[in-house]
């Protein structure tokens, strides 16, 4: 189950999406995130769906692989849908099951919110799938640079983030190994009551934590041994380069933002 989780994974490739400047991808995603929630017009949702689908298709990632990796997250989407379905009380009553009533407004709201969330998850997953953690960090650091003038430690933030991303797959592998080791000693993670299942994870979590602390210490030592002393005066081996295609993509998302804003005001 765990080996399919896609968060933080990078799939190598040479597609258009892969070759975009990470800053373009980050900024576009940010625009998308904000303006997707500004308007609820059908045109805007449609445009968002087209943008997402286009990005997904041009990234050259196997759709089956993508589906396997994101289907766990769909639980959240489904949950959101049902929450809105049952908790919104607008429009006419479509269905009554005991104390619960489904309103037409709830159905619409459920669809809209669920759909937005789905699009957002797909696009955000696509970002990490097509961008190496190093690029992603460079991009974030570069976008946050203005903040460093007001003494925000942007380099340190970026480093922390890249280390966290870097170790997600490592932690997943390790979790699996420990789970297997405890299963070999009769631990059952998929049986019994919810409380028992949660308790069954304790023998996994404790070794995982103790290993993580040890690893953090080792990493710090290794970094210091190679002369790392923070961000001041540090130059980069790889410089980011903003190309025409980056401008084009960013403009597409700007246009989307404009459309969204226009339907809201107009």
């Amino acid at each position, binding site marked *: 189950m765990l080996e399919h989780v896609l968060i933080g994974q990078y799939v190598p490739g040479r597609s258009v999406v892969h070759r975009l400047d990470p800053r373009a991808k980050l900024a576009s995603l940010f625009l998308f995130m904000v303006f997707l929630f500004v308007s609820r017009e059908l045109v805007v949702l449609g445009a968002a769906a087209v943008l997402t689908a286009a990005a997904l298709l041009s990234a050259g990632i*196997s759709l089956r692989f993508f589906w396997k990796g994101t289907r766990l997250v769909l639980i959240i989407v489904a949950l959101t849908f049902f929450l809105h379905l049952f908790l919104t009380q607008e429009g006419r009553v479509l269905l009554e099951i005991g104390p619960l009533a489904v309103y037409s407004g709830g159905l619409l709201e459920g669809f809209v919110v669920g759909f937005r969330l789905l699009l957002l998850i797909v696009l955000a997953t696509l970002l990490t799938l097509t961008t190496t953690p190093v690029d992603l960090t460079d991009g974030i650091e570069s976008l946050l640079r203005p903040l460093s003038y007001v003494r925000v430690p942007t380099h340190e933030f970026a480093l922390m983030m890249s280390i966290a991303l870097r170790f997600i797959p490592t932690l997943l592998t390790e979790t699996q190994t420990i789970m297997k080791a405890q*299963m070999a*000693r009769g631990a059952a993670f998929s049986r019994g009551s919810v409380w028992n299942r949660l308790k069954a994870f304790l023998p996994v979590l404790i070794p995982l934590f103790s290993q993580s602390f040890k690893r953090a210490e080792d990493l710090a030592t290794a970094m210091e041994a190679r002369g790392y002393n923070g961000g001041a005066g540090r130059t980069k081996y790889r410089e980011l380069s903003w190309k025409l295609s980056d401008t084009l993509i960013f403009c597409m998302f700007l246009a989307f933002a404009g459309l969204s804003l226009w339907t809201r005001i107009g």
Partner: protein
Amino acid sequence: MQITVTNVSYTYMPGGPFAVEALRDVTVTFASGETHAIIGATGSGKSTLLQLLNGLEKPSEGSIDAGGHTITADSRQKDLFDLRRHIGMVFQFPEQQLFAETVLEDVMFGPLNYGDDRETAEKKAYRALEKTGLPPSLAERSPFTLSGGQMRRAAIAGVLALEPKLLLLDEPTAGLDPDGQEEIMRLFSEWQQEEADRTLLLITHDMNLTARKADHIVLMESGRVRTEGTPSSLWTREDLIEEGVLPLPETSRILAGLCTESKAPPAVDAFTVEDAADRIASWVRKGEPDA
């Protein structure tokens, strides 16, 4: 406990860009009461095979028969749980899996999971601790305060406490000093000799260990069984040695050196220091190969 592996293949993450075929059509039998060594280069599928044997992973194709249980692609977790009761598995660096507040609690974890009451579990735990040579005074200590060697023993005790019929070991001596390696292996040999049907199956890169301890060696190469046999039958096969897939144990290397030096036909199948010395002595007596 005998294990029969029939036409087993295994693919990690099938269908995705990271799909890896770890095992291809593996057929091999591990006889009861013997010590088996699985050797081969890193990535040859040794660990995967080991994990299939106690049902931690299920084969993509083929079947495994272990002590009356059959593991196939659609085995149910419940059956695998019953199977694992009789198969202990010591992972690489097992000390990383300690979690409980005291050593005793950690060792009791397995027996309790398989339905023993606290009293029985405690008895089994103390017996296992004794076997691994940990003094009972450590039982109430936190496992995280032990030394590295002690932690490994405590973790191994946690597996022995299950009183398995078959013990699977994934590089049990990795990261230990020579004395530590010797002690850990002695512990497992003693465990095995206590009862006639106890079976030991280990993955190792240590050819000296393999040559001395194993009754049966399985050589893996890119997900397949390259060849199998007794130490004597394998280390007399020049094709494997010349190809470099089967490194010589130290005693054999000395004998091989003597044979090349004197241009005699190689006879390198002596794996303990005593056997090698006897071989050399007999050569000296007979005046060949020109020693």
